């Protein structure tokens, strides 16, 4: 039985295909359309999923949309009623859009599907799951647990912004929820906008900025913006926000409370912005920990699954883990709305068709999250040759040796291998790699390769076997969703003068043996690399370790600022030629920048809108 899940029309469209409960393929539309956060119907991603399975669309038993349009419309109407006569402007924008397409989502979907497979009655095969049910299903049914408590937190779905479910076997019972406009995701988004970043993509930047600041405003937030009960449930005081009916996230009362208007995008970051970031991060952690503690106490669950955009807050995730209330924690790597496509398909299979779970995998059902397109060596060579690339194909030992040598020479290496990752993180399939021991690497990668703000730290990939020697962590973290400290013996003491440095200057001081992945608070966002799911990346790290004693590499996504992560060999080559990546390793092909035709160089710096 084939079930296709779709998320679309808000942000991060995606498609996912499962067959008899096994995940065959999943990918975001942006990777194909090359439009970051593409929200259109995921026609390319859908076609790719079918190709991967080698089937035509009419072989698909169910197509499942990841939320319920009518419930969402009801929420919209109630919101306008609650704020009118305020909110006319957004009413005027939203209503025609809803009347034209969103309210008739079923018809729209049917039309899109009929265009691809006209002889099928798609109306009978279309299903709709609730938004948070989709998230919960993506977290539980893909997890390695037979039974778990499932917590989902995001901006908003239909009404729910937070939900608790209980999963057992092939059952997933939704238990309770918190409704719009009370949302941890929207609260974080409000601070993202207020500190001058873009909502829905700048949240990572706020999280990355937080360790530079002091949580001076945390109490102000708790006293005014959000009322948190002992069990972690919360309400936001809507006087401080404007996202319900207005066109911005925050209201004048919010600006008055924090003493000024929002920071203009691209304006210099001040210590105040850093303190605001630290404050909202601290409050988020406080709320999440209250939630998980109460859930642990009440349900007695040994396992916890997380999904929803807030579950991408890996600093908070690390705190849940260290809080120790659950024996095991599993987070869906595609925790945002893209993952809803996968959850919708899994929910339909287990809850609608009532099919049993597959035998539990020792890790999980995500196969390392390498669920996107892969390219055979011959195809990579053909595609690279077509775009004029000069490369040398090498057997694996030589390839690894040449790559390690380049890394040790502090070169930025593009690493294009195997199937593309599903979800927001690059995990060694479509990555840019660097030597974490280099004090200059962080700055080089940010300014010359990624063209992004220099305050943002990079994440380490580390051999699973060695993680405890380098970090305060001895768990699997294959999806880069847990933050933990650098191990004490790897830290370097700072001189008094260095300690006194402030903000971003501090990031440029070597604070550990692996400075490029050490944040100012000695934390790191860790990816453990497993031989079972990515043997070649594991082999590269092993080779790097053999030559340097260090089983760690800098791993950042294969793109420049504002660009979707590379999908095809051509995407990788373009990014290679448009940035200061010096070496590209695509399949068995080894490409040196200096060997390339200079006429193919691209000016990539201003090609994409800032994210």
């Amino acid at each position, binding site marked *: 039985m084939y079930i296709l899940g779709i998320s679309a029309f808000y942000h991060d469209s995606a498609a996912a295909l499962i067959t008899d409960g096994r995940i065959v393929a999943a990918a975001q539309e942006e990777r194909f359309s090359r439009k970051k956060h593409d929200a259109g119907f995921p026609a390319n991603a859908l076609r790719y999923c079918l190709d991967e399975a080698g089937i035509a669309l009419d072989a698909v038993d169910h197509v499942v949309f990841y939320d319920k*349009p009518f*419930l969402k419309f009801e929420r919209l109407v109630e919101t306008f009623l609650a704020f*009118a*006569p305020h909110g*006319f402007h957004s009413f005027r924008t939203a209503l025609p859009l809803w009347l034209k397409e969103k309210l008739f989502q079923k018809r729209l979907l049917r039309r899109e599907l009929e265009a691809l497979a006209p002889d099928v009655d798609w109306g009978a095969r279309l*299903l*709709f799951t609730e938004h948070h049910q989709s998230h919960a299903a993506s977290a539980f049914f893909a997890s390695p647990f037979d039974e778990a408590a499932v917590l989902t937190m995001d901006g908003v779905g239909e009404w729910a912004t937070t939900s608790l479910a209980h999963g057992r076997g092939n059952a997933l019972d939704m238990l309770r929820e918190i409704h719009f406009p009370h949302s941890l995701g929207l609260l974080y988004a409000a601070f993202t906008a207020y500190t001058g970043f873009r909502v829905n993509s700048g949240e990572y930047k706020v999280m990355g900025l937080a360790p530079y600041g002091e949580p001076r405003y945390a109490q102000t937030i708790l006293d005014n913006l959000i009322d948190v009960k002992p*069990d972690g449930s919360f309400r936001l*005081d*809507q006087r401080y926000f404007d996202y319900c009916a207005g066109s911005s996230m925050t209201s004048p009362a919010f600006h008055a409370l924090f003493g000024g208007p929002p920071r203009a995008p691209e304006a210099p970051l001040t210590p105040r912005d850093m303190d605001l970031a630290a404050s909202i991060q601290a409050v988020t952690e406080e709320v999440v920990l209250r939630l998980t503690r109460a859930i642990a106490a009440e349900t007695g669950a040994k396992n916890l699954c997380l999904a929803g955009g807030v579950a991408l807050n890996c600093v908070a995730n690390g705190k849940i883990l260290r809080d120790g209330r659950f024996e095991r924690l599993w987070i869906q790597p595609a925790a945002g709305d893209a993952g809803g496509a996968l959850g919708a398909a899994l929910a339909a299979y287990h809850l609608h068709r009532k099919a049993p779970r597959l035998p539990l995998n020792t890790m999980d059902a995500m196969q390392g999250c390498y669920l996107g397109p892969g390219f055979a060596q011959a195809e990579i060579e053909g595609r690279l040759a077509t775009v004029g690339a000069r490369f040398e194909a090498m057997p694996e030992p030589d390839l690894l040796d040449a790559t390690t040598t380049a890394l040790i020479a502090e070169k930025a290496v593009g690493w294009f291998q195997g199937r593309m990752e599903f979800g927001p993180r690059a995990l060694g399939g479509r990555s840019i790699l660097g030597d974490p021991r280099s004090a200059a690497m962080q700055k080089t990668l940010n300014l010359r390769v990624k063209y992004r703000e220099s305050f943002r730290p990079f994440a380490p990939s580390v051999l699973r076997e060695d993680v405890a020697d380098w970090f305060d962590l001895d768990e699997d973290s294959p999806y880069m969703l847990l933050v933990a400290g650098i191990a004490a013996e790897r830290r370097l003491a700072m001189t008094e003068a260095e300690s006194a440095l402030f903000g971003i200057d501090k990031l440029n001081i070597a604070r550990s043996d692996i400075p490029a992945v050490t944040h100012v608070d000695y934390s790191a966002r860790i990816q453990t690399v497993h031989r079972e799911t990515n043997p070649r990346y594991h082999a590269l790290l092993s080779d790097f370790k053999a030559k340097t004693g260090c089983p760690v590499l800098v791993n950042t996504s294969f793109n420049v600022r504002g660009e979707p992560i590379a999908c095809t060999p051509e995407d990788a080559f373009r990014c290679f030629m448009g940035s200061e990546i010096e070496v590209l390793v695509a399949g068995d092909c080894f490409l040196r920048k200096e060997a390339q035709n200079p006429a193919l160089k691209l000016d990539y710096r201003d090609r994409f809108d800032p994210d």
Partner: protein
Amino acid sequence: MRRLLSNTVVSVAIGLLFLVVVAPLGLMMRVCGRDRLRQRPDKAVASYWIPYDPRRGAGDRMTTQS
């Protein structure tokens, strides 16, 4: 021209709908104390969790958009 005209008609219709239906209805509901979005914190309650109606998430409900 025709498109411009139809856009104008739509804008006027939406304006009227808002002015004649949404705004008065919303105001009236609020005067009657309706607060569907629960806009202010409530110090008196112990929890803000809302129990889930199990009929809603059942597998056989997936055929509908609501």
